[in-house]
């Protein structure tokens, strides 16, 4: 027995987590090398929910893409649409009216509220604090209702249009929003008190996953994760977009860099959001909601648009060749920037802390699965679109033949040798 324990200690295990795992809400694959209970190495493999959205944008027109890109993320959908709209408007050389910009900012802040409350619940659930999970999600319903009243949808609001917004805020809605914010403010104060004073919860958060400001800079983390390490990184402040010049926010910082700091930063950010929504409601600029003319074809050129999503900086690159569809849309979501920090921070920690550290960056897997570089063996090779397409066609032709769907008359085409290689070489 004794010797057995001894050998086990010296042994190194690899614990695979995912792609399908009860602790993960979305598919991602992690491998943690552990010695005893301590993680000594970590690696991640992404790309399980790659949806080909970027390629899809090239076969839809500018307006249709607005709706599709909004669906990249179910939680921070509005901010995707905003980033895209701002980029396209920049390309077209137009600017949405001030009232539209203010409404964009307001919906974005409401979205941040719902995203942070959702995250609070999820993080509490990861820590085993089910009551906080339930309460946070119950209170999140308030902001979901506000969003539904404002835009008609609880998620994927479709509030944006190229050159403006679709929905105005009526006086009645404004007072409903104020009421909702009062309630949320009170509840957020309570949650802030809970996460900083409950000793059981603090044991799971204080001093865990500590990331120094230097590390945060080096890893290139963004959003609340960076701000919890004392790094001022907030697009709303650095490069104000929409109405953030007229209705500015103060970045919320914490110095500790541990999980507790991430809780504190996100919750204190909520007060910033409530404040700015109130200010917008009180001083909503009058005027039109949409531009009189938004061109259907966008002038040729390239645009970069950066916005602050609830999880951090969201980056859009848009290239137009002057037609009614984009030539290229590249999206980089904040989770991709923050993922590296998980791998660094888990090393040296207990395996039991891993889910908490992972949830600390507020990961959103499906959003960050996009780019795809294919390599086969050691020979790095970038394949052309036509070749990929041909492989796809051949592959499915072969599958139909051998699978016997519909009939036996189709002779199985020889399978191209690539699909297994495709999987092994997947990078995001």
């Amino acid at each position, binding site marked *: 027995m004794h010797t057995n324990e001894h050998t086990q200690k010296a042994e190194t295990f690899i614990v695979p987590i995912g792609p399908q795992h009860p602790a993960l809400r979305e598919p991602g694959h992690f491998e943690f090398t552990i010695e005893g209970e301590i993680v000594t190495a970590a690696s991640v493999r992404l790309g399980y929910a790659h949806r080909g959205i970027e390629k899809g944008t090239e076969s*839809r027109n500018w*307006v*249709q*893409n607005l*709706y*599709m890109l*909004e*669906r990249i993320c179910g939680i921070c959908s509005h901010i995707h649409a905003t980033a895209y709209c701002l980029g396209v408007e920049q390309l077209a050389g137009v600017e949405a009216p001030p009232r539209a910009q203010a409404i964009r900012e307001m919906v974005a802040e409401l979205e941040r509220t719902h995203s942070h409350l959702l995250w609070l619940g999820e993080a509490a659930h990861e820590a085993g604090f089910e*009551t906080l999970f339930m*309460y946070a999600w*119950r209170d999140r*319903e308030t902001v979901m*209702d506000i969003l*539904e*009243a*404002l*835009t*008609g*949808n609880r998620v*994927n609001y*479709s509030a944006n249009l190229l050159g403006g917004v*679709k*929905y105005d805020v009526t006086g009645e809605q404004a007072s409903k929003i104020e009421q909702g914010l009062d309630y949320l403010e009170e509840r957020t104060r309570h949650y802030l008190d809970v996460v900083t*004073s*409950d*000793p*059981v919860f603090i044991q799971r958060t204080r001093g865990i996953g500590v990331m120094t400001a230097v590390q945060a800079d080096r890893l290139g983390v963004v959003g609340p994760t960076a701000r919890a390490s004392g790094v001022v990184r907030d697009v709303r402040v650095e490069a104000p977009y929409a109405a953030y010049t007229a209705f500015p926010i103060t970045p919320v910082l914490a110095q500790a860099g541990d999980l507790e700091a991430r809780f504190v930063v996100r919750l204190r950010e909520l007060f910033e959001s409530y404040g700015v929504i109130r200010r917008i409601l009180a001083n909503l600029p009058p005027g039109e909601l949409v531009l009189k003319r938004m061109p259907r074809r966008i002038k040729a050129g390239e645009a970069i648009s950066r916005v602050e999503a609830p999880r951090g900086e969201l980056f859009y690159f848009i290239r137009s060749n002057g037609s009614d569809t984009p030539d290229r849309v590249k999206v980089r979501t904040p989770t991709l920037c923050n993922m590296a920090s998980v791998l660094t921070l888990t090393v040296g920690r207990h395996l039991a802390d891993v889910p908490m550290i992972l949830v600390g960056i507020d990961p959103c897997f499906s959003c960050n699965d996009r780019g795809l570089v294919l390599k086969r063996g050691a020979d790095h090779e970038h394949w052309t679109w036509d070749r990929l397409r041909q492989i796809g066609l051949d592959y499915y032709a072969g599958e139909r033949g051998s699978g016997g769907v519909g009939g036996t008359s189709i002779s199985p085409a020889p399978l191209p040798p690539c699909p297994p290689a495709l999987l092994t070489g997947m990078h995001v």
Partner: protein
Amino acid sequence: MFGEIVKGLYTTLKHLFQPPVTVQYPEIKRPVRNRFKGRHELKRYENGLEKCIGCALCAAACPADAIFVEASENSDEKRFSPGERYASTYEINMMRCIFCGYCEDACPTQAIVLEKSYELSFYDRASAIYTKEMLIVDVPVNGRSTPQVVEPGIFNRAIPEMEDPK
């Protein structure tokens, strides 16, 4: 530590005596908001004529390619809608639709409107396709059902004077 646990349990206990927030769906249905984007409806004019003129602009606009429209000719003896044409086939695949409301924006006659119904579940894929019969609203009280026999020369204009959407 003990005191804190008691404090936490006290919070739970307090909530125990508050009314539950869970809505007992499907017995109780939560009302949707005014701007809610639910299942589409094809609207009619007060006289019963269909608003849809079969122009297929909604189908062209739809980002999800969910709509299929086929138009046929109207005549004054067999009139479905004002103007030259009407939608003889109108189908929306609810499994494709993402409820974005772009079809609503594209429609020149405000014929298609995303309404309040959200109970869309099916046993098979084929029943996810909503046909014109399922989408079109009932004939208004003072209207007549389509096709109608009308006086020639009244309903030549396909697109009515527009008003701002509410």
